[in-house]
């Protein structure tokens, strides 16, 4: 098991250009990050390619890690999630309106989202549960599916401004709950 301190240490060495540390960091973290990219992209070929991009970014940006205030795994997961979402949005940009309809109708809602919630750490679960089910799902979809305000408005069949209001209120409730 690699501890938080181990990963921090590896990132610090990567920042110095230590290739052995980079390989060790990849060994310790790539399965988690590949899981995340697969979850977001749901496509192995795309996920593999994005995983490459992620570690290229890690190599080039490791020296900036210490100033951002994130825990090492959060830093890596955030790079992975954002890179995967960027790719997903690029792929979606080529979608026709009919394909968008189909995607939104197909990957139906609840069961999976609920499964995600069930095993999350307690505080986060409890705070998501305080939100209306739809609102919690919208926040989850924004993070894990990279859905935009426009995507979410189409999915929940509400006007764009309503969606913004829902989501902003949900974020406020979540933040208040999480810092309680």
């Amino acid at each position, binding site marked *: 098991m690699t501890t938080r301190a181990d990963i921090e240490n590896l990132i610090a060495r990567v920042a110095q250009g230590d290739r052995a540390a980079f390989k060790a960091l990849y060994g310790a973290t790539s399965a988690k990050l590949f899981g995340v990219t697969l979850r977001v992209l749901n496509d192995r070929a795309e996920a593999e390619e994005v995983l*490459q991009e992620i570690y290229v970014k890690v190599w080039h940006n490791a020296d900036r890690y210490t100033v951002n205030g994130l825990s090492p795994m959060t830093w890596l997961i955030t790079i992975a999630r954002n890179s995967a979402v960027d790719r997903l949005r690029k792929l979606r940009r080529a979608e026709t309106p009919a394909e968008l309809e189909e995607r939104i109708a197909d990957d139906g809602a609840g069961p999976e989202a609920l499964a995600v919630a069930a095993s999350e750490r307690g505080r986060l679960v409890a705070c998501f549960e305080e939100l209306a089910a739809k609102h919690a799902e919208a926040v989850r979809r924004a993070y894990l599916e990279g859905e935009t305000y426009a995507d979410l408005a189409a999915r929940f069949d509400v006007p764009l401004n309503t969606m913004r209001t829902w989501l902003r209120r949900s974020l406020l409730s979540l*933040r208040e709950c*999480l810092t309680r």
Partner: protein
Amino acid sequence: MSDQDQPDRDDRVLAGEYTLGLLSAEDAAAFEARMVREPELRTLYAQWAEDFAGLTDDITPQAPPARVWQQIEAGLFGTRERGSWLRRLTLWGGGIAAAAVLVLAVFLPDLVERGPVPPVDPPYVAQIAAEDGSLVVQAVYDDATGTLFVDREAGGAAPGRALELWLIAGEDAPVSLGVMPQYAQAVLRVADDLRGRVAGAVLAISDEPEGGSPTGAPTGDVLAVGPVQES
């Protein structure tokens, strides 16, 4: 007015929207600029990043195939031969049958110099155009010979950048048809195994580094798209 009434004016909310990637490019840039100056904003962002990362807690780790590390090493340190075009295609092609990925789309310089002559009565045409008309490419496709004639009527690559043409057939990942040459008119040869897939597909042009996408998939903005239609 309380936060409940105007939640969108709250930095805690703004930081959450930034973390989720919900802000417009302009608002995100403005938020990043503020983060540089305002430590409190960095703290708000860090809190959201930590909390949302918790949403990945139950995602099962999956060991990536060995080729991913090999490609990372090759790309960063050149410890293996430079990733060839073909190998990159096979890498990202993954699920697609290998044969289908071996696209041989070649610009024929001799034809380009003479000026390509599109068929008089082409079976398929496509207008690959940006919404604002900043890039317009007319394409004519002859499925009998697998020849794609392209004529760039408006726009071009940005300085130091290249335009790359992609075939998007159905649900499949985009397949590169090659980098558009500097000439306005050119001919591309579409590989035999792709010939039958051009009809009904979508052609797209993306902004890429000189020499084309380093990854085998579009990396820059998609500038123009157009469906291939029977003429």
